[in-house]
């Protein structure tokens, strides 16, 4: 085996190989049910075979970029990354899992919102990666996202691929024109006041929502506002909390903005988001995950210098200004004949500095691997944002005491109920408390969960 490159890479490679060798041996002892593959029990460097990876667009590009480096360590393993599209990937995984895992790819890119559902509804379909030496990575990832990828008994079903802290993106040119100083905006109340000023001065709405929620779900803002108050649809015990004080306050803020006439109604789609980034369908602000910082420089390249990024304002003065806005995982399917090789690829792409550098450079997904995001190369000034160290804004959020978000297996139902409640508020002027109570009742009726008192 030949190594090219510097000492760090070599050290990483040797380390990875050693860990894998040890862990695959350990796996043999722990998991007698694992189908014996030709590679199990031998050194990692001798892994052979072909593994396929299911992902979509930008994340797929990132993973593809990890292949050359991976193959230097494992020349016997061929990796094929398939861009199967999002949301098509969820139906693909669902139907394969419902068929007992037939036809699943070896490595699956899974959204945090689907993770709990797959783990609970299709038990045994995702491999416990702690048996493949990935358990030791726990300390290298932020605790919240790491925990959401775990099973009830601490099984490691997914390694965080994207960890999206929240960016508050604002149009510096519009703020300037309206005479609003963004640093004075501490809370969402401040922001709505500023939004009115901006609307009056420039005619541009503060932000956009898909009010009817007919094109896609439209709950990102509500989720952010609820997160900023340390709450979510469910609490840690899985009881329904979407209609608690935090949930109602979040919907009241949205209603208030809508009543002020500063919310544009733009159907939710990627094209419409890009139109906002480019200023074709102008909005003064939007909130998005950390990945947006990189995406803006690509799709909104003509707007350099006109976008700024900050932490989101707090809901109550002095409250949280950080929220984990979703994320994705890499998992290995249990029916994969090549689990060891698949796990080795996941480990290389997400759990090594070299792999992370390649993945981040090509895909731009905001990573979760702490040794990488705390490295100096990651926290560099970005010309597009006037030389601001944009990634620091996201990194600093990982230090705040954000709640561990419990998506449960019923997230999709709760999301739908919330969307419908919000639509009633935005289009019919309904009362937030009333519609959220009804939504909570509906989710309770559908899932048998109880509403938290």
């Amino acid at each position: 085996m030949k190594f090219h490159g510097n000492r760090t890479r070599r050290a990483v490679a040797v380390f990875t190989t050693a860990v894998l060798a040890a862990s695959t041996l350990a796996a043999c002892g722990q998991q007698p049910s694992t189908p014996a593959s030709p590679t199990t029990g031998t050194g990692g460097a001798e892994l052979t075979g072909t593994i396929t990876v299911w992902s979509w667009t930008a994340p797929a590009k990132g993973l593809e970029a990890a292949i050359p480096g991976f193959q230097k360590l494992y020349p016997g393993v061929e990796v094929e990354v398939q861009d199967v599209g999002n949301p098509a990937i969820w139906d693909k995984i669902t139907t394969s899992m419902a068929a007992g895992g037939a036809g699943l790819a070896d490595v699956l890119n899974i959204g945090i919102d689907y993770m709990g559902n797959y783990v609970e509804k299709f038990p045994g379909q995702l491999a416990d990666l702690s048996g493949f030496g990935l358990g030791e990575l726990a300390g290298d990832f932020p605790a919240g996202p790491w925990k959401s990828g775990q099973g009830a008994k601490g099984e490691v079903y997914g390694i965080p691929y994207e960890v999206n802290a929240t960016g508050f993106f604002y149009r510096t040119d519009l703020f300037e024109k309206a005479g609003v100083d963004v640093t004075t905006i501490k809370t969402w109340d401040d922001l709505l006041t500023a939004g009115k000023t901006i609307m009056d001065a420039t005619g541009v709405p503060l932000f956009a929502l898909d009010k009817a929620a007919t094109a896609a779900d439209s709950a990102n803002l509500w989720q952010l506002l609820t997160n900023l108050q340390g709450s979510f649809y469910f609490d840690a015990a899985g009881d329904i909390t979407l209609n608690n004080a935090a949930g109602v306050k979040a919907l009241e803020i949205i209603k208030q903005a809508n009543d002020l006439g500063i919310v544009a109604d733009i159907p939710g789609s990627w094209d419409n988001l890009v139109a906002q980034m480019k200023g074709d369908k102008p909005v003064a602000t939007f909130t998005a995950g950390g990945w947006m910082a990189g995406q803006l420089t690509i799709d909104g390249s003509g707007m350099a210098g006109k976008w700024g990024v900050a932490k989101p304002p707090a809901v109550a003065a002095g409250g949280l200004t950080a929220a984990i806005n979703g994320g994705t995982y890499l998992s290995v399917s249990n029916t994969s004949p090549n689990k060891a090789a698949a796990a080795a690829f996941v480990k290389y792409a997400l759990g090594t500095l070299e792999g992370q550098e390649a993945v981040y450079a090509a895909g731009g997904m905001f990573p979760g691997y702490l040794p990488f995001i705390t490295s100096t190369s990651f926290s560099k000034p970005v010309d597009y944002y006037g030389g601001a160290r944009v990634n620091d804004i996201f990194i600093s959020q990982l230090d705040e005491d954000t709640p561990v978000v419990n998506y449960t297996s019923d997230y999709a139902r709760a999301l739908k109920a919330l969307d419908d409640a919000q639509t009633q508020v935005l289009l019919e002027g309904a009362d937030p408390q009333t519609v959220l109570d009804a939504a909570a009742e509906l989710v309770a009726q559908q899932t048998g969960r109880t509403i938290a008192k």
Partner: protein
Amino acid sequence: MTVTTTKGSVDAVSPRALRVPDRRRRATAGYPRWTPYLFLLPAILLFAGFTVYPYVSALWLSLTTNRGGETTFAGLANYVRLLRDPLFYTALKNTFVILIVQVPVMLALAVLLAVAFNSVLLKARALWRTIYFVPIVMGLVAYGILFRALFSSQDGFVNQLLGAVGAGPIPWLANGFWAKMTIVIALTWHYTGQSAIIYLAQLQAIPVDLYEAAAADGAGAVQRFWNVTWPGLRPALVLTAILSTIGTLQLFDEPFVLTGGGPNNATLTVGMYLYTNGFRYFDFGYASAIGYALTLIIGAISLIQLRLTREKP
């Protein structure tokens, strides 16, 4: 085949022995009895594998529930839950509103179109027939994108047209009532041509002498339509009414691509609700129960329609 009974017993068995081979010979014409089944076998296997098995499997699924990954027998729990589910009733109501508005409008339009297609006054008939039939072959996704663009509440072409004549804008996809109307319009656009072609085939089977006789008796165009065309169309009308009703009760494609069942469940159909429960919430037991409930409803309505439209003896 010949009689092969042993000598001496021939007399005793002769009536039966003679009759049986005789009948066999006529029935099989020299081939084994199971020959027809052999030819039917592929169809039987396909039917068993892809129709009977899913039906039985879904029936079983509808009696189970999935808790923590364990599929357990739950008796009629899913059906009881269905009866108490407000969203199921919303879905049923929406489906019936769309059905009651859409099917009569579409069938009436289709009759008018078929009569026009069949008219001797019409030039370039093949062209017209093709134009109206083309929507049928249009793919679901293309059709969804097209209608979304046309009916966009913000900058859709339809609202621009309405604006040009001083009307609107109408919140096509953002308001419950108008979203249903958009679905009705999309369905009508998609399927009217199909019904019209079926009617056209039926019209061409009506003998011309009936019209000539009616004309000779002094019947005008309207009288000829009601007394010759309409009764002649009857079999096709019954067929299309039942097929369209079943199709609309199963409605899924249009709300799926146009509105996602929204806003606020205003276009949630039973088909959409089934899909969402199965493939979004992974609640296959409940989805199967919805499927069986829908099957019962369709069966009952089709029976009623057959009764109502039965020819009087």
